[in-house]
């Protein structure tokens, strides 16, 4: 912290009863990581009781700014004031003491403990030496009531749905009496339905006078619930405006820093041979429950078939069975007419199956390995890159570089570890690896999850391009708009079954929404 602290002229508490200082005021906040200026003299005001959205591309500095407010990042310069009172927050504990709480993208819950135990963790009510369960459960019920939701307090967190975990995280902040709640991309892990529930919770919290700050990539959400929006680009605030009087097109241009128009997805399907034929496929999940029942469908060359459904309807198990990661109980899978149920992942890949995992950080890529190694992973039999049991390191590095340039992966070179890449760039890397050589069948699970506007456009274009070159694509997504825009046909799943197979012309979001929730 530099000497800026006392230059604020500290408004005396009684002096401005009419002009109330903002709940949070950040001035000149700067954070540098080596050569990278993550936050460059940020000024930001957040008013009490409002819902404030922060938008920007991956790497714009949103998360760094929020982490500075929560005490996870020590800024190089700048001040933070709460209600006009300068504070110094250098640890999360201090942030919590000041009433600031944060819900991270990856939840900070202890899975083998119950919801109740997680709630009280870090501030255990005690009776003598023991955990005072009765007092805690009373408090827990109060909090759930405040939030207007229910919670199974004795369930282990490991067995809670993602939405319930998130509500638990929120209650944990309220339990510790947080008044400013920061959310880092809260909807990126939620189904559309869960996201709607979250918005209701957020509005409720805001009406109770709490201040909400949330980071998002989705402009739709900004206009749905936020009152103010701050746009960040390359470590700077480029706009901070009320949402009323702004519009998505303007914000999108501010985010990418140029006039930005979403290119239309071009081309119609030239439906060819059947590529993937699934019939009577049933699959169990890890606990032995039959999660996918009797699925039958066909994907043809040159078409994109979308798969819609509330998360946990059996999509994941279907994808794993198609890729070869999970053995089906019954049913057949044919690729170009040849059965592949017993084939290994590698055999299927060599017959042209490409796979974009929904779990980019732990299955789609190896964060600890270099970019070269990530790209090479499915080219192990490429005679130019490896032969006679030995790797040709120079060739692998050149090969990786060509993929990086073709798919515009920025921020790192072939020898750097994959964890150096931001989410969007990492997804480009995965895409580059899987789609470099036009696949026969592309299985794309949530390919745009957690990716910024520009990245999403790029991914959509690549999917359209792949279709044009004759690949069969199965696209799984929680974004209905995305599915409707890209798919030639749409399958809808509900409770482990495929309950509808709609042609593009028949699809409306209302109809699909009803089918997904079992209401139609």
């Amino acid at each position: 912290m530099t000497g800026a602290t006392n230059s604020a002229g500290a408004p005396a508490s009684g002096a401005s009863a009419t002009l109330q200082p903002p709940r949070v005021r950040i001035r000149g906040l700067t954070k540098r990581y080596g050569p990278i200026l993550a936050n460059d003299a940020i000024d930001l005001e957040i008013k009490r009781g409002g819902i404030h959205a922060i938008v920007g591309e991956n790497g714009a500095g949103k998360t760094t700014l929020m982490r500075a407010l929560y005490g996870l990042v020590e800024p190089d310069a700048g001040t933070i004031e709460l209600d006009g009172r300068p504070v110094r927050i250098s640890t999360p504990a201090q942030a919590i003491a000041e009433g600031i709480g944060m819900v991270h993208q990856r939840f900070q819950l202890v899975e083998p403990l119950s919801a109740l135990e997680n709630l009280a963790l870090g501030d255990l009510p005690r009776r003598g030496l023991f955990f005072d369960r009765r007092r805690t459960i009373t408090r827990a019920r109060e909090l759930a009531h405040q939030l207007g939701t229910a919670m199974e307090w004795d369930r282990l967190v490991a067995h809670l749905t993602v939405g319930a975990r998130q509500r638990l995280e929120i209650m944990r902040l309220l339990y510790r009496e947080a008044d400013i709640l920061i959310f880092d991309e809260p909807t990126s892990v939620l189904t559309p339905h869960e996201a709607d529930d979250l918005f209701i919770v957020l509005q409720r919290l805001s009406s109770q006078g709490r201040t909400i700050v949330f980071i998002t990539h989705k402009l739709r959400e900004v206009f749905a619930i936020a009152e103010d929006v701050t746009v960040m680009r390359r470590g700077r605030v480029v706009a901070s405006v009320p949402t009323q009087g702004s519009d998505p097109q303007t914000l999108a241009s501010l985010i990418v820093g140029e006039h930005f128009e979403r290119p239309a997805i071009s081309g119609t399907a030239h439906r060819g041979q059947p590529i993937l034929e699934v019939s009577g496929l049933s699959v169990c999940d890890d606990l032995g429950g039959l999660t996918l029942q009797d699925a039958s469908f066909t994907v043809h060359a040159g078409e994109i078939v979308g798969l819609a459904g509330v998360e946990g309807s059996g999509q994941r198990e279907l994808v794993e069975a198609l890729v070869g990661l999970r053995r089906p109980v019954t049913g057949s899978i044919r690729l170009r007419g040849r059965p592949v149920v017993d084939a290994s992942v590698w055999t299927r890949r060599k017959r042209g199956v490409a796979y974009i995992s929904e779990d980019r950080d732990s299955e789609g890529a190896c964060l600890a390995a270099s970019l070269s190694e990530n790209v090479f992973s499915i080219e192990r039999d490429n005679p130019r890159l490896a032969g006679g049991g030995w790797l040709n390191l120079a060739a692998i590095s050149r090969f990786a570089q060509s993929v990086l340039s073709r798919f515009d992966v920025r921020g790192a070179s072939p020898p750097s570890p994959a964890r150096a890449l931001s989410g969007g760039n990492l997804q480009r890397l995965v895409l580059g690896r899987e789609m470099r050589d036009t696949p026969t069948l592309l299985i794309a699970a949530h390919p745009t999850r957690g990716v910024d506007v520009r990245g999403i456009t790029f991914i959509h274009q690549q999917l359209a391009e792949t279709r044009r070159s004759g690949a069969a694509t199965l696209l799984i997504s929680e974004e209905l708009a995305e599915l409707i825009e890209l798919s030639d046909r749409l399958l809808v799943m509900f409770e482990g079954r495929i309950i509808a197979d709609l042609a593009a012309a028949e699809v409306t979001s209302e109809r699909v929404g009803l089918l997904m929730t079992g209401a139609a």
Partner: protein
Amino acid sequence: MSQVTAEAGIPVAGQETVVATQELRLLRPFQLAGPFLIALLVGAIVLLASGRDALGTYWLLVQQSLGGTTQIANTLVAATPVLLTGLATAVAFRSGIFNVGVEGSLYVGAFTAAWAGFTLTQLPGPLLIVTAVALAGLMGAVWALIPAILRAQWRVDEVVTTLMLNYVAILLTSWLVNYFFLAPDIANSMSPLVAHQARLGPLLPSSQLTVAFIVALLITVLYAFLFKRASIGYELRMTGLNPRFARAVGINLARAIIVAFLISGLLGGIAGGFQILGVNYRFIDHFSPGYGFTGIAVALLGRGHPIGIVLSALFFGALSSGGAMIQLFSDIPLDLVNILQGTVMIFAVIELSRLPFVRRWVRRA
């Protein structure tokens, strides 16, 4: 290139801490030397507390392990088995397998080499040596195949199986030597001596330094090549770094697990074989002072890096050869050397670079 990585390389609560790369480069020497320095410090405190001259003792230790040709040769002799078991352990660790059963492979290999040495006596020297070492490696690998199959086929936790199989191996060889292969006219539990032509000759006169040390160094080079340049090494490494990723890109995990165990067991068996042909000349019941377990420390301290493994094997070799000697020249008990070893092992596993004061210190530098 500057705008994109801003959100990477940031410490995140509850997640693996990521330090910016130039900080890492500064930290590396400290990370490697730190455990030794701290261990020496703790040892010094113990020495001072028991009223002894710490610096003098350390000087004696250095003299007795490095202070002359004989001393250096003894250090290298002591480093040989732990270098091999260290490599054996590191192969498994880097493949994501916590094989703590190298000691078992070492016993099985040692017994096999001894058996070959006193049974196939009609073979000429070099051929007998090569056969004995090859059989030792083979049997070490076969021994490791048991936990390998259990793990690959039925996901049985390898820490439990390998740890327990150590005792099985130690007691099995004990039974074999006591009931079937006891040397005549000797009260102790020893096998007959191996044939003269099976014994490794000294590289230096009046020392036990043999070609085994050179072979161990060559195996270190092979180890480096395996993980840097070999296709199977790539598969092993990916399996170790992220098994879910490895599976999704089509690496056969069961095969990777079995290969890693086989190489690990092979090296453990060779370590045992060389110990018999180069040092003991016969199998002795319970002969190993824990070479397999010291190998775990060597692998961890060397961070799986070939040069790191050689250096830490030399360090443990020096401690054990110097420690054995200072008992003769002072009243310092061997236990002190064990305390030093233990302290180094503890601090080897701690990631010093994560300590906040170390970070602050680096940032200032």
